[in-house]
């Protein structure tokens, strides 16, 4: 029995390691590509002279591509979009979890429907509106349009967190003399902090990865990394080493954020999983 258990354990470990290799291989391959010099890009697999030249090129704004500006743009619009969505979305999620009013479900469904429609179906009218309103190629314009991505996510996920909180806690606070606003900020909100952390990270990743909106609604001023990184592919030769370096650099902010809030993240993602 012990031998069988041990064998099963070893097999399970081996399967996990295999899966680990399978899952991480694309990332490892990108790291390898980013370290290859241009003349060994296609002639070798694993044996090459590693160089940080690609990173220097990408971060040095060489090749006529202002990658660092695109990176800063991505940071500004993604953080801005998440912050605005939290500001608007948390009270909305709380309200929709606590009260039913006429049209509340329709309102919530409308919000969710922003996630159904492919972005391409609304991009031309949006483009025209942005041109007319002077929002084209601006941070404000990008933060606004990214609400279509981040707001439904935050409202719907946080709504279920608030719904899982027992209302008695807030009622007790109200009895103690708290206003509804104080009950929200001092009682409900601290209890769903892990959820806020998890959903903020998700919303940040979705905003950071968005491609169609920055492609059509920005030019050089507010262009983000998702569009900018592709610039290394075109032109005279496909520069996969530079594209890989640009992609890896652009992974850093979501990765750092995930590591920083890991403690909340685990709690947030498992929050409400088991009900008493």
């Amino acid at each position, binding site marked *: 029995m012990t031998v069988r258990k041990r064998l099963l354990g070893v097999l399970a470990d081996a399967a996990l390691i295999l899966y680990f290799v399978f899952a991480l291989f694309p990332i490892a391959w990108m790291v390898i590509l980013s370290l290859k010099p241009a003349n060994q890009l296609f002639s070798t697999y694993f044996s090459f002279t590693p160089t940080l030249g690609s990173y220097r090129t990408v971060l040095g704004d060489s090749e006529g591509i202002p990658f660092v500006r695109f990176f800063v743009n991505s940071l500004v619009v993604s953080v801005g979009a998440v912050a605005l969505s939290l500001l608007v979305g948390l009270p909305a999620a709380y309200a929709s979890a606590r009260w039913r009013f006429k049209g509340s479900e329709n309102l919530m469904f409308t919000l969710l429907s922003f996630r159904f429609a492919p972005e391409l179906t609304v991009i031309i009218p949006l483009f025209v509106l942005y041109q007319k309103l002077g929002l084209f190629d601006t941070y404000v314009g990008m933060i606004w349009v990214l609400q279509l991505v981040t707001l439904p996510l935050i409202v719907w996920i946080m709504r279920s967190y608030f719904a899982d909180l027992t209302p008695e806690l807030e009622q007790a606070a109200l009895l103690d003399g708290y206003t509804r606003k104080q009950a929200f900020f001092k009682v409900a909100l601290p209890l769903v902090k892990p959820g806020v952390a998890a959903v903020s990270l998700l919303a940040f990743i979705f905003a950071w990865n968005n491609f169609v909106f920055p492609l059509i609604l920005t030019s050089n001023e507010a262009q983000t990394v998702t569009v900018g990184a592709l610039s290394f592919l*075109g032109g005279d030769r496909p520069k996969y080493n530079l594209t890989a370096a640009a992609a890896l650099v652009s992974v850093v902010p979501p990765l750092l954020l995930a590591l920083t809030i890991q403690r909340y993240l685990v709690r947030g993602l498992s929050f409400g999983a088991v009900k008493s």
Partner: protein
Amino acid sequence: MDTHAHDRRHFLALTAGAAATPLLAACGAGFGGNDDKGGGSAADDVTGSFDWKREKGGTVKALLNKHPYTDALIADLKSFTAQTGIRVEYDVFPEDNYFDKLTVDLSSGRASYDVFMLGAYMVWQYGPPGWLEDLGPWMRNSSATGDEWDRADFFPNLLQADQWSLKDGAPLGRGGQYALPWGWETNVVAYNTEVFSKLGLRPAESFDELREIAGVIKRKAPGAGYDGMYGIAVRGSRSWATIHPGFMTMYARNGLRDFTVDGGKLKPAMNTPEAVAFTRDWAGMVKQGGPPSWTSYTWYQCSSDLGAKKAGMLFDADTAAYFQAVKGASPASGKIAFHPGPKGPDGSLATNMWIWSLGMNAKSKKKSASWLFLQWATGKEHLRRAAVTGNHIDPVRKSVSQDAAYKDKMRHLPGFIETFETVVDQTKIQFTPQAQFFDATTSWAAALQEIYGGQNARSVLNGLAGDLAAKVD
């Protein structure tokens, strides 16, 4: 490089969106407003003697694709501003999504860009809705166009490629001039001289020879020290861009057509017995001598494989080989030579091409300044500088192609100048102009993949012709 990796789904979705724009305008949404001045051209407003400083102090906004031709243009913009007093603002977008951006911009009816890069095929899509300014009146107006621009200096096939009457099936070279040729690519064979020499091979003069040589390289090169080398790199992804370089060139050299036009009606011709035989042979060549994962091959892989000594030959744009051939660019640098490629049965060297052209937004409010920019960018002086000091490889002007400094620069690439001069007069758009071009050629590429996968060529191409007949009707 051309839009080889152009995403068809995006393009079709955007085209569908674009189609909805006039409906929105009709509903009073205020989109696509018409700023045109009635029937006449804005070129008629330009009178008096020609003056480069006519629009001094103005600005022109350009949408450009990331490309070596663009780099050469941007590097020389100061001279345009010095000559005209006009400032150029520009946005550069990556190749893969450039046309998504341009399509949305033009279809919106806004004049956010006055001038832009486009390919000759795009005229068939952007011309009929009225998004492109007809440059003919500007070219003909001596007050707007300086003598030194010299229209006759362009290779005639290139100028004609951007000229069309906007009617499906109508030949190029008649009607409005919807763009100006700026930089182009001819589709020829580039080969690794070292491998050819080691295996005792000579460039193919016929399609049969090409297929045979491709197979020989794939069989023998690995044993001769070229590990993993295959015979010939050609595109194979499910994209319109798979059809237009090597395939269409060899197809045309065999005297074959994509469509026939009868009484103004288009009839697909890719299922004639001769076309079926050719397509079967092409798929066979890829099987015998092509890359192992051919169905995913775009110009990226084709070009890179030639440079990495994985492919013995490349049948594609000459620029795709050029940037691997120049000194220090790749392991195959210095060992790549150019050849016109196999002749057709009657000796034809008919060649298909891609032309990066420059067009003007029909809604631009700065047409006079925009025309000065187009005139300068396609003029002799800039194009000569771009060819000699930049990487403007295939000149659209005869004078630049004969320029001593340009020839000196290109001479180190074996066969480049000879190949260019051999095919230039027979290089033209070999497709029949029609608005369904991208859809039709993408379906054609899908059919080619099916034949490569072992399906019967005749039935696949009959099915394709049936589908396309309904689409272009």
